[in-house]
């Protein structure tokens, strides 16, 4: 790992230079809308403050709407035409550590047994520059999910804003290649200060929860009906989640489309015969909690949750998954 001290001007200058070869994507604050990942043409537009983006970085890897192939019909013959993968190299800057941890979890599904070339291609063409959290809010519970608000967790490099400057940690070779040239090496004194700072920042994540080890035991508990009563069965929690990855496949104009889908929707498991294994909010909400805190753990050894707080922050009726999991009657 390389440590550097970088000024904002140096960073912007470098990004300006990199814009020649890379697509640069980063958070941008939009009036009356919030903070969103946008393609950046001018580094000054970047938002590298304390707020969080509404949509997770997931959407840049698992496209909300992806065409898989096209079926051509010509001279009474069918042929399949594959959709060319985008090869543009890109840099995503300002990504929170929890979000890249989310990508590492998605890797277990999309870059393992059956590799999804669309996802893998997006992973391979991207350099991620993280941004440590200086001000987690009360919906953040990353430290309870085995994560950290300050450590890299899957970024190629990570920025810490401090006293109007950035401290830059370069983690991977990919990161070194693009960022290696800027900044100055910090003095031993500065390094020490920085380490202390890091520790202090870790304590800023106030919400602490305990995800039960044996949620399985309370599968039948009436608790799930109680906590899901106010659920609206909308897609906010799943679509904004950095780790939710369920999708639908449909044909439109002889093209196959993958689009997001989620376990909260009534139609998600509805069969053509009219059978629905998850007919009520109880089964659907429990599915979400169990997929995250039981099934995924059984399959991959980790919770499918990074504690980013989005599903709590944006839930139309303030359902709080951290509280629900913490208070599960195990």
């Amino acid at each position, binding site marked *: 790992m390389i440590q550097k001290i970088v000024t904002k001007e140096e960073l912007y200058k470098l990004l300006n230079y990199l814009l020649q070869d890379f697509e640069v994507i980063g958070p941008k604050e939009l009036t009356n809308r919030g903070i969103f990942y946008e393609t950046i043409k001018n580094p000054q537009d970047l938002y590298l403050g304390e707020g969080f983006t509404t949509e997770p970085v997931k959407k840049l890897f698992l496209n909300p709407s992806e065409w*898989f*192939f096209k*079926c051509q*019909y010509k001279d009474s*013959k*069918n*042929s*399949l035409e*594959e959709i060319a993968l985008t090869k543009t190299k890109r840099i995503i800057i300002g990504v929170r550590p929890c979000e890249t941890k989310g990508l590492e979890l998605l890797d277990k*599904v*999309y870059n393992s*047994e*059956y*590799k*999804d*070339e*669309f996802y*893998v*291609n997006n992973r391979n063409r991207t350099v991620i520059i993280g941004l440590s959290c200086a001000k987690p809010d009360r919906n953040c519970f990353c430290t309870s999910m085995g994560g950290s608000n300050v450590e890299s967790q899957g970024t190629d490099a990570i920025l810490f804003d401090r006293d109007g400057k950035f401290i830059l940690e370069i983690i991977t070779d990919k990161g070194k290649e693009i960022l290696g040239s800027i900044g100055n090496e910090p003095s031993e004194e500065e390094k020490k200060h920085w380490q202390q700072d890091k520790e202090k920042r870790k304590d800023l994540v106030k919400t602490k929860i305990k995800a039960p080890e044996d949620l399985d035991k309370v*599968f*039948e508990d009436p608790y799930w009906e109680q906590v899901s009563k106010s659920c609206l069965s909308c897609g906010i929690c799943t679509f904004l989640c950095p780790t939710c*990855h*369920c*999708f*639908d*496949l*449909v*044909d439109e*104009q*002889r093209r*196959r489309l*993958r689009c997001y*889908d989620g*376990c909260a929707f009534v139609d*998600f*498991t*509805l*069969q*053509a*015969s009219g*059978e629905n*294994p998850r007919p009520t909010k109880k089964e659907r909400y429990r*599915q979400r909690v169990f*997929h995250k805190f*039981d*099934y*995924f753990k*059984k*399959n991959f050894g980790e919770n499918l949750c990074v504690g980013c707080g989005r599903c709590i922050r944006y839930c139309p009726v303030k359902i709080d998954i951290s509280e629900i999991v913490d208070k599960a009657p195990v």
Partner: protein
Amino acid sequence: MKNIYLPHLAEIVDIKQETPDIKTFKLKFKDQAVEDSFDHKPGQFVEFSIFGEGEAPFCISNSPTRKSGIECSVKRMGKITQALHELDTGDTVGIRGPYGNGFPIEDLKNKNLLFVAGGIGLAPLRSLINYCLDNRNNFKSVTIVNGARTSKDLVYKDEYQAWEKARDTKLYLTVDCQEENWTCMVGVVPKILEQLKPTCQDSVAIVCGPPIMIKYTMPVLLKIGFCPEAIITTLEMKMKCGLGKCGRCNIGNLYVCKDGPVFSYAQLKTLRYEL
């Protein structure tokens, strides 16, 4: 890297009207190399594309021992099955697969086999029945209980004679209500099983049919003496990707498409799957 969602083109070479709403489609891959390398186990399924309409999973109903193209039997139900029923021989569809675990053939060897089917539920069992009959020495007795709402709804009628004639093989056909000129049994499948009381000694029951049939068949089998481990069923569930990613078919931590669709009743109980 390959696009795992990309199907192979296949041509419909034969269509057989099994019942008023079920057709069996026989397919040949356009690419001979794909045709030659395609290999499946009884109980596996394929994702079937009708371009412009979408994709749906159907079990392969022919036995791997009888290769003359993939066969899928399809009941007209929703969007994709309706579109499929409109197709003619010579039309092009897409196929990817085979997916799923298939029946645990090794565990069935040297066992008495009881096949219990209702309606189109015979489709995956047909693959296994013919496989067993083609490898007859590996299995003990074969008993087939096949039911349908009416005699018109019985599928694979022209194979019944061969099954009845096979060595140590019994076929019981039943319809829900008495009909004119019907000489076989009358009554729903669970009731017939109660009457027949097939042996549970050294036996495995393989059950497939509509959910309601499976629900009422399980207690009867348990009563006869089958242990939950010796009851095998294949589940129908909404599936999209077939690869354990899209998320809608999971029961417990398993995916019906990847880890199933064949499960033992004992497994389903631990997965808290409600029949």
